């Protein structure tokens, strides 16, 4: 499998799990790592794709979706986790299911030092907020781990974060 096949296959695996568990709303802040998954969701007439101005909007969106009987997922980058912290209290206080897929920055081979402070505390922050966190390093594990995490979120009203490692996504390539 070449790099390009890798980069296309794991978002498709996540999308397959979205279809399986019946995700109907997807909130996202545009992100290079999630670009393929966002495209799949935007093109799915069964999914309300909601582009957000900031990630915490997506947390509240997921709560509203649950009130209306729909399942939601939230796509963000690790920096977005910091934007969400107070809004996560809504999910914990009310026991709303929450499934978020976090593309990691600020770790493996990060070029931009400004990504490191938040990236290095993303998982710990999520845990402090009551999330179950599952980290994915290998493309072959994506389907299994995302599927398991989604089932935990929606069968038990848990808050679940899947951390997609920078090594999985691929280093951001910087050009002058």
């Amino acid at each position, binding site marked *: 499998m070449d790099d390009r096949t890798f980069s296309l296959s794991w978002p498709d695996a996540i999308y397959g799990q979205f279809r399986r568990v019946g995700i*109907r709303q997807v909130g996202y802040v545009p992100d290079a790592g999630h670009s393929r998954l966002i495209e799949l969701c935007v093109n799915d007439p069964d999914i309300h794709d*909601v582009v957000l101005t900031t990630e915490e909007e*997506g947390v*509240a*969106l997921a709560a509203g979706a649950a009130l209306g009987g729909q399942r939601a997922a939230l796509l963000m980058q690790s920096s977005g986790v910091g934007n969400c912290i107070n809004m996560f209290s*809504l999910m914990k206080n009310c026991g709303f299911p929450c499934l978020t897929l976090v593309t990691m920055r600020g770790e493996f081979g990060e070029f931009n030092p400004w990504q490191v402070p938040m990236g290095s505390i993303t998982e710990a922050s999520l845990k402090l907020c009551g999330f179950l966190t599952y980290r994915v390093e290998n493309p072959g594990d994506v389907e299994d781990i995302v599927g398991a995490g989604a089932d935990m979120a929606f069968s038990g009203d848990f808050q679940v974060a899947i951390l997609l490692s920078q090594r999985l996504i691929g280093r951001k390539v910087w050009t002058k």
Partner: protein
Amino acid sequence: MMERREFVRRLLADRGDLAVVCGLGSPTYDVAAAGDHKLNFYLWGAMGGAAMIGLGLALARPDRRVAVLTGDGEALMGLGSLATIGVKQPANLAIVVLDNQHYGETGMQPSHTHDGIDLVAVARACKFPEARAISDIAEAGAVRDLLHAGRGPILVQARIASGDTPRVLPNRDGHAIKLRFIEALEAAGQ
């Protein structure tokens, strides 16, 4: 300037199956004072999230009318969500900002609307097909009708007096409020 409790009472008169999301603080007390209802989702926190909860609900249930009643401070904290709602254009969503131009919960410090920041203009810029400010209680009936039949997204800036109002405290148990709401919404209209 309107008296907030009387305005909210008129807004929620004969509400039927209207689903109501209340922003934390005084709007939650105002909605509770108008009469507890299973289709009230009371917020006690999550400041800045009320309108987005309304959007998620409105998208999930296009067959229902959804009203968000919130304060000026809460709406200002979630200002970006007006842009997000403007993109999605939910026809069944209305936001009523109970604007007393102050942060009531924290000691009545003036909010941005006190200095003339114009939420109606923001909503119009965010492509809300209906955005208006009212300050006369005689207009409450027209706003009530908008909540039930207007084409959303709608934003109404309701200018209310900033006087002290006794707190009316609904249930604070988030799980209980959620479950009661979901059960009532499923049963509504059946």
